[in-house]
């Protein structure tokens, strides 16, 4: 089936004032083609030529490759003020050439690639950050308005959306939270045991794990998991809705996307996060117990009673309060990035990435602040 290719060749016959260009053989994308530079050189040094004519008697098969070379040749001749007799080319090529010339490039269409100096890059980063802060303030403001509307019973959203969101970010997250918290409890117990067993005070591992989990690690780990899981999902959902014009459609129907889409998601997370935090605390204590009871000659009863004595209601409520705050931050970063999303597939990816990054940054900053405040207040 395959036909043997004849080698492509180009010959120049000087016949002043005509320059005859003979094109031979098969000019195809996957074959070697002759260099055009020699022909171009002929055109540039000889002002004796007034017109270029073609001879294509022995031209075989050809495709876009010949076209690009011809276009280059014609453009070059035009630059040198030499006319080209296109009529001497085959009809198919003439047709394509006229098609190429049919819509000439308009001045100003082409993009200028400008050199960007590092100073400009830094400046742009600064402006970008400023815009982000602005957008965040706007978003928080809008969200506050919708929350007020919610408490006055005037927010328009579907309750089923709220339940679905609670289902998505609550019970569905339990397996991963179980695994991570159990392991964190286990790690805390091991780390503590190294020091405490020096004094024979293995029993105090229970205090360490209990306090560590309930005040800090339970909430923090839950928040990190949820920002990877839920903030990303929110950003992707809302971003895709933005791409598909769904958010525009909601607005056109008279819904406030803030109330209809963002509010149920934020409320769901605020409701679910404290519960998940409590669950994570419990799992952490169980993880600690596994280690202590099995490796350090402490009975389960001793461990549990020690834990109950160590954890006060304040510790638990500090952890839960922190986790509720994290919930707000996670929902905020996810929804904000989703709503800001552009209109293309790659921008959905960008929105998701930046939702997770923003979420984790917010969480860590907020956690540090709250820990310092608790410390100063002596809570």
């Amino acid at each position, binding site marked *: *089936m395959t036909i043997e290719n004849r080698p492509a060749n180009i010959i120049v016959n000087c016949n002043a004032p005509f320059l005859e260009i003979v094109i031979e053989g098969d000019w195809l*994308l*996957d074959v070697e083609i002759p260099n055009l530079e020699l022909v171009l050189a002929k055109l540039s040094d000889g002002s004796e030529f007034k017109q270029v004519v073609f001879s294509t008697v022995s031209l075989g098969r050809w*495709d*876009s*490759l010949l*076209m*690009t070379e011809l*276009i*280059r040749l014609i453009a070059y001749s035009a630059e040198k003020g030499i006319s080209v007799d296109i009529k001497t080319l085959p009809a*198919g*090529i003439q*047709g*394509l050439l006229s*098609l*190429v010339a*049919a*819509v*000439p*490039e*308009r001045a100003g*269409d*082409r*993009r200028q*690639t400008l050199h960007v100096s590092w100073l400009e890059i830094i400046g742009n980063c600064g402006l970008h950050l400023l815009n982000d802060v602005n957008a965040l303030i706007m978003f928080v403001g809008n969200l506050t308005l919708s929350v007020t509307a919610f408490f006055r019973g005037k927010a328009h959203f579907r309750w089923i959306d709220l339940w679905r969101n609670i289902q998505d970010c609550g019970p569905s997250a339990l397996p991963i939270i179980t695994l991570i918290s159990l392991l964190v409890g286990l790690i805390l117990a091991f780390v503590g045991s190294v020091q405490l067993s020096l004094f024979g005070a293995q029993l105090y591992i229970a205090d360490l794990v209990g306090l560590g989990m309930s005040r800090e690690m339970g909430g923090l780990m839950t928040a990190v998991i949820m920002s990877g899981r839920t903030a990303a999902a929110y950003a992707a959902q809302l971003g895709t809705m933005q791409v598909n014009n769904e958010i525009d459609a909601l607005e056109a129907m008279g819904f406030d996307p803030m109330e209809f889409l963002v509010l149920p998601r934020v409320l769901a997370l605020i409701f679910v996060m404290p519960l998940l935090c409590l669950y994570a605390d419990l799992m952490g204590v169980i993880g600690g117990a596994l280690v202590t009871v099995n490796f350090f000659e402490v009975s389960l009863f001793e461990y549990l009673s020690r834990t109950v004595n160590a954890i006060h209601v304040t510790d638990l409520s500090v952890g839960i309060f922190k986790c509720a705050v994290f919930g707000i931050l996670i929902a905020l970063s996810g929804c904000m990035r989703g709503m800001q999303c*552009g*209109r*293309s*597939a*790659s*921008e959905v990816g960008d929105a998701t990435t930046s939702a997770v990054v923003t979420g984790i940054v917010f969480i860590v900053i907020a956690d540090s602040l709250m820990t310092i405040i608790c410390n100063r207040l002596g809570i």
Partner: protein
Amino acid sequence: MSSPYLSVKDMTMAYGDFIIQRDLNFTINRGDIFVIMGGSGCGKSTLLMHLIGLHRPLVGDVFYGKESLWQADYKTRKSLLRRTGVLFQSGALLSSMTLAENVALPLTEHTRLTAQHIRRLVSYKLALVGLAGFEDYYPAELSGGMQKRAGLARAMALDPEILFFDEPSAGLDPVSAKLLDDLIRSLRDHLGATIVIVTHELASIFAIGTYSVFLDMETKTMIASGPPKQLLAESNDPKVLRFLTRGASENSSISAIKNQRA
């Protein structure tokens, strides 16, 4: 000129066990502008997916020349499909790449051309579809019609022998749709390519179609084939006539009955 290029033999298409169309038999000749038409949801686009090797038919086969598409092994199928170019409904340009990168993508993958040659080829293809100078734009910065033409430039990147179009004029204003039709026809004339178009746009069916098949949703098979104008003139099937006359045949028969009664 009329040598068969692509043929479909006894093909049945299905999603799972839900049959879309059965017993399809037709041949597309070299140089044809072949129209696949039918109402919305009758399986036109699904048929296209089968022709370009994205869906395996439940029964039957697609032949490029004499070579079977679905009996062939993976490598042969790839090489058969290298001769095809596809323009998807909304252009399907990769949004994270500029137009030049989009068009260059198949060239860098399938040929061993130098970067300079590829750049010239890309400019040529873009000029061919009337987008000279738009190399460094991102798809999102262009209008729908321009995105579609850029998609066409990408479909033509490897000089395919056969070009598939999925609803080329959907979402375009009549003038842009007409320009796209003209472009398709002149590409066929000058490149000598074979064109397959999935559409329900009557204006373009009659303007550029040289042969057509009509898929029917209720009987789940093709109920007419032939040049579109001939179908309009000679077909007796009420469904085909209703489609080709935008339902006017139905109205006229009703008015004819009313006239008789009056």
